[in-house]
């Protein structure tokens, strides 16, 4: 009995946004008298960090301080229509809508500030919560004061509205000709595994991943997606299915006793790198990241096991039982 090592590769691409488009996102940003900006979206915060990313985008596009931007989410009463938080679409689609809304806010701020400072709007710039006369650092006014004056003296609501949609592509029913996506993100994962020929257990030793993401608006949150994607991909590769006898419905998993997820002790050594290649279609060049990071993992693991044992197992998950059968197949010369 031995421990066999192998290395596997998988290269992938993944479309950003709903397939074929036609998935609008809208937002309304409302400035408060205290100088804060409330970004209202019907998108959902589910751990991925949407509130943080959209706040970064809005603060950047307005010129506001990050702490003065608050994203409120998930309420159809306060936020206009959004298609939903899926299809790696929110940073891209809602991000674009937030940029558009922020630009309207910015135009209003510059207009009011130009009257307050008695200069033309094009001679002004907004940085970190202050409006400056370009080249004259001591002539400035805070964004908070501009917002306040707009409402109380200049009779102007400081509200920005933004909308983004990739128009729905037609599909030729005879050839499938269509324009399905805004942009493609890319990834490549290389995995090293160790296969125990006695138990059939596959251990993932190293994962090397590179993802091309357009722009990482928040590299820390992208890292969260990358690491989570690796662990979820390992589960798909090695242990997870609700129908172990698929397509039969016997032995259907009903609890975490029957359905084993990878845990902290299974996390391999991870090295990753992001490639930035801004897409003209996305906010500050961002592409969708949340989904593709899971897609490159399982095929790289299965290819690594193929490299280690010389048999390609084609049905997920590659449980110890399947690995032992494959080894037996190889010994008996059927592989």
């Amino acid at each position, binding site marked *: 009995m031995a421990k066999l090592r192998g290395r596997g*590769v998988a290269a992938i691409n993944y479309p950003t946004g709903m397939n074929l488009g036609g998935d609008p996102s809208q937002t309304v940003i409302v400035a408060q008298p205290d100088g804060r900006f409330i970004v209202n979206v019907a998108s959902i915060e589910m751990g991925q960090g949407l509130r943080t990313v959209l706040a970064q985008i809005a603060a*950047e596009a307005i010129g506001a301080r990050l702490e003065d931007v608050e994203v409120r989410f998930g309420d159809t*009463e306060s936020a206009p229509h959004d298609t939903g*938080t899926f299809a790696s679409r929110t940073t891209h689609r809602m991000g674009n809508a937030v940029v558009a809304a922020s630009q309207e806010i910015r135009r209003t701020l510059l207009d009011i500030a130009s009257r307050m400072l008695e200069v033309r709007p094009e001679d002004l710039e907004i940085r970190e919560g202050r409006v400056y006369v370009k080249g004259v650092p001591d002539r400035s006014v805070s964004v908070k004061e501009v917002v306040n004056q707009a409402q109380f003296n200049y009779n102007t609501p400081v509200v920005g509205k933004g909308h983004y949609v990739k128009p729905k592509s037609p599909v030729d029913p005879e050839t499938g000709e269509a*324009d399905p996506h805004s942009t493609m993100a890319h990834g490549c994962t*290389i995995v090293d595994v160790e296969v125990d020929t006695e138990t059939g257990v596959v251990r993932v030793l190293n994962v090397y991943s590179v993802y091309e993401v357009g722009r990482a608006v928040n590299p820390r949150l992208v890292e969260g997606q990358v690491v989570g994607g690796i662990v979820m991909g390992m589960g798909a590769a090695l242990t997870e299915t609700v129908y172990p006898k698929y397509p039969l*419905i016997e032995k259907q998993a009903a609890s975490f006793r029957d359905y084993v997820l990878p845990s902290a002790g299974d996390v391999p050594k991870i090295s990753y790198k992001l*490639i930035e290649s801004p897409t003209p279609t996305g906010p500050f060049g961002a592409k969708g990241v949340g989904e593709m990071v899971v897609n490159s993992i399982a095929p790289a693991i299965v290819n690594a096991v193929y490299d280690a044992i010389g048999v390609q197992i084609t049905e997920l998950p590659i449980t110890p039982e399947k690995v032992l059968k494959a080894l037996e197949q190889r010994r008996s010369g059927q592989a």
Partner: protein
Amino acid sequence: MEHEFSFVGKPVANVQLLGHVTGETEFVDDIVFPGMLWIKAVRSPVPRGRIKRIDTSKAERLPGVVKIVTARDVPNNYHVNMAVLGIGPPDEPVLPDKEVNYKGEAICLVVARDEEIAAKAARLVEVELEELPPVLDMEEALRPDAPVIKSWGVNAHIFGSGLDGATPKGGQGRPYFLVKRGGVEAAFARADYVVEGSYLVPPIEHAPIEPHICVVKPEPGGRLTIYTATQAPYFVRDNVAAILNIPPSRIRVVSPAVGGGFGGKVDPEFEMQVAVAAMAVGRPVKWRWTREEEFTVSTVRPAVKIEFKDALTKDGLIIGRRARLLHDSGAYTRTSPYGVIKAVFNLSGPYYIPNVYYQGYCVYTNKQPSSAMRGYGVFEVSYAVELQMERDARKIGLDSLEFRFRNAYRNGQVSASGKMIDDAYAIETMREAAALASYPLSAHLLRMSSSG
């Protein structure tokens, strides 16, 4: 041109973190109302059966039971799911009136003072079912002698007739989605090698920390507020409006922090039932799925089987590919035709294959409905493509990455669906991964580029 950004590109901490670790974040489970009632479902014990009789009398007599909700309480029981997707036909009832099509399908709902009473009452509801032969296997489902579980006479979705949310209405229609380009027969005729493979991804559960949970509160003036763990509040609003026959603007959907989704909370799969129950009793009603319901009833990643046949030259190029994809939709349509179309568009992976013929079937079986899960449509495709690439490389005798570099798509080429490629980065991404893993690459690969 590179700009200096103030916030974009900065590793700002997730603003939700502090609330999560201190327990301050509000989830739907934290939302309670005075007089709130609870739901438990009476579920089908069989994968397929005709409903002969539902006797709720014993359950109704149990103290604390307020109402048993059945199909009769649903104003518009069948509707087109998710208006924005426009996918039909409306094959799934909110609550079944004639037959059940998967084990665990909710037949009726007990609304009671607390969860324990509701569960006890659910066991007292007598449902008489005439068992029917189920279809579980996708290949078997497509055979002409298989039991037919769909009203239109075939256990597959009809693409091309306007019900797939993509192609124009009034078309011919066929039981698969088709993408073809170039001339695949000619490519196979001049191939040096032909390599086949068949790959299967089974159903996988999203397994979020927080199971499905929803509370619906009737409001004055015929309005209602739905607090739910969803990824798509407007989907919920549109679907509930459709099944209650009320204007969507009378419905407010609130989704506070969601405890993980991974695609499993995209379909409004239970909010409609809670809304019907709340409207029927005129009180706030909550439904909290158990982990068992999460595994056995909630949507799963679809099982997808993909068969490839590649035409290769001895120079290591893929000149043609045939693919047949079977996508297990489970008992009902949900978003599956969307998933199939997305999958079929991506069957070339990040590679340039000039001649392709791809067929994708959305197959119905008597299993819990499948729907979106992280990487929807493409997770299974990436899996199959990358296993097939390995098979192809070995057949020709080329290194794994060398083979992928030779076939990687470049800017200016067209995709399987005829889209001009202008954002190719496969070569650069593979090269960086090789560097990271100290994977040796030949010098000519280091000089390649997606724009050359």
